């Protein structure tokens, strides 16, 4: 018996080691626990290994960053001034675009509130640096330099400004493992922006993200944007995922897979953001940004658009000027200026039309009722029944002369719409913008 063990010692050790690991595998696969992260001894082993491997990686990372910081921060600063000017111009353009979207956003919020829809907003993110990978093709995971001590927990979304990256899996004290969306065991709820087709995004065995098991649809075209749907309970709705690359039919079955080109460059990740907190209310910072965007856009437009005030015209009324004086506290005007008097009053001018109860169908409007405040103008008197055909020409001419051009009216209308939160700030040189006579501007 003793000779048997000594003779087959090596094989017995091999069998013992393999058997122990197979049993360990079976236990892990059968009872993975309620969450995606490991429990007990497995987690302890992972923690030890990560604790031994990541410190040198942090050191490498820190050294590389220091060298690059010296180079890019002090030496390689050519064309920075020109780039800064270009960015300022671009910023102005973006503010204009932001303003046009702000009203839509507010309208969307109101509609969501009416429907009881629960939107998730990103409250807080933590920036983290990527320090390593699994090192194998079979496992698409990353290691970041933030962990439980910084407030991270398993199943938190990890993103970049370009798009989503994945979610946290195992979280250790100062390091976390991130499962990328390109891994075959990952999953994220997504929606195609144009066709509104929903699906589950996961990687194939080669690490190519794809939306699996989708019904064939001819409308799905390459290049269509894909965003998160929020249906997975992890990623907030509306985050960029990527774009459709191509549609692949399954060998068997009638469903198709949609290959997606990720918006975030998953093979060149250096910094990521971990979303640690979300909520159903729009964050105060975002609300402020939204309001300030409208305010700044009005200023930009006022600087760019031509002034309506004529150089030879008499100075404006003192009341109007006083009304536009900025408040000493906020620097913003306290009350909007009064509307300018109509040069050619007509039936469209405010107060010129009699109440509906006094009007008789088929009869012309009484001259007394039509008499506006500036009724001394003979052109404003109502025409006789026999010259009724001349009225449209008159009204059209007066309407155009007294109206505000669409370009100057738009910022006024915006300001009117936000008057409940911010005092209206009319654009300098465009007194008509804050007249308050534009009904569509109200909320």
């Amino acid at each position: 018996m003793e000779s048997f063990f000594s003779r087959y010692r090596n094989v017995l050790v091999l069998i013992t080691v393999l058997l122990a690991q197979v049993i360990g595998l079976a236990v892990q696969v059968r009872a993975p626990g309620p969450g995606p992260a490991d429990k007990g001894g497995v987690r302890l082993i992972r923690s030890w290994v990560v604790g031994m491997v990541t410190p040198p990686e942090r050191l490498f990372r820190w050294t590389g960053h220091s060298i690059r910081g010296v180079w890019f921060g002090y030496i390689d600063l050519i064309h920075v001034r020109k780039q800064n000017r270009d960015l300022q111009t671009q910023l102005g353009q973006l503010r204009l675009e932001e303003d046009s979207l702000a009203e839509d956003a507010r309208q969307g919020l109101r509609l969501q509130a009416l429907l009881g829809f629960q939107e998730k907003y990103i409250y807080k993110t933590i920036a983290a640096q990527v320090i390593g990978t699994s090192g194998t093709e079979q496992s698409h995971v990353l290691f970041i330099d933030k962990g439980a001590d910084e407030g991270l927990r398993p199943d938190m979304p990890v993103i970049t400004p370009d798009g989503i990256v994945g979610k946290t899996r195992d979280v250790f004290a100062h390091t976390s493992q991130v499962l990328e969306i390109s891994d075959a065991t990952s999953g994220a709820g997504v929606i195609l922006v144009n066709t509104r087709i929903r699906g589950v995004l996961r990687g194939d065995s080669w690490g190519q993200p794809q939306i699996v098991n989708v019904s064939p649809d001819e409308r799905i075209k390459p290049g269509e944007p894909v965003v998160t749907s929020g249906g997975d309970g992890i990623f907030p709705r509306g985050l960029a995922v990527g774009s459709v690359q191509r549609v692949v039919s399954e060998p068997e079955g009638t469903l198709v897979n949609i290959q997606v080109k990720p918006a975030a460059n998953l093979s060149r990740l250096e910094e990521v953001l971990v979303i640690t907190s979300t909520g159903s209310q729009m964050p105060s910072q975002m609300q402020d940004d939204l309001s300030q965007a409208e305010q700044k856009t009005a200023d930009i437009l006022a600087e760019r658009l031509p002034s309506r005030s004529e150089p030879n015209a008499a100075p404006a009324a003192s009341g109007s000027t006083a009304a536009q004086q900025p408040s000493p506290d906020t620097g913003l005007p306290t009350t909007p200026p009064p509307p300018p008097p109509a040069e050619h009053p007509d039936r469209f001018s405010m107060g010129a039309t009699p109440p509906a109860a006094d009007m008789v169908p088929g009869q012309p409007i009484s001259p007394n009722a039509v008499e506006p405040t500036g009724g001394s103008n003979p052109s404003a008197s109502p025409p006789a029944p026999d010259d009724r055909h001349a009225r449209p020409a008159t009204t059209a001419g007066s309407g155009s002369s007294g109206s505000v051009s669409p370009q100057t009216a738009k910022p006024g209308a915006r300001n009117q719409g936000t008057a409940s939160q911010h005092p209206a700030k009319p654009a300098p040189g465009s007194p008509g913008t804050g007249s308050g006579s534009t009904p569509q501007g109200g909320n």
Partner: protein
Amino acid sequence: MALIASSRHEAGSRSFPPLVYILAPLLALGLQSFLSLHFTSFDLIDLPLLITIYYGISMREPMSATVVGAIVGIAQDALTHHPLGIFGITKAVIGYLAASLGVRVDTENHGSRVLLTFAFTLAQTGMLWLLERRMLGQPFAWHWVHEIIRAAANSLFAVILFALLDRTRRES
């Protein structure tokens, strides 16, 4: 530095400093994780596998090589999100085979090292396919051309790495 393998007699009278036994696997795991982040193609190379093969053919003790392979493999598993034991099983087998062959074959010349590494890399991928696809039911990509390129890349890298590790051995 000359990339010349030592003779069979010389190799038999040499051993490694204890520190190398600990540092080399750790360094292999760390470099594998770090370099794959910056060089995407580096994940073709499997440094822990090369370390396991080298220890196997150098120590020529199947029992020790099995244990070393299992430990290195489990450590590699710990850096993935897979269950612990997949790489552990494969590397334990590779360590055992490498040590068994090291007793019978002259593993001190570069030709045999290249061939052995090529064969062991393919063998490891085959075992991984068996474990992941058949035993665990996980998706596993297999493409012959890709696997042969991977095996060839590991073989060439092994020549340089083994020569470097040879220099850490000392006369016993």
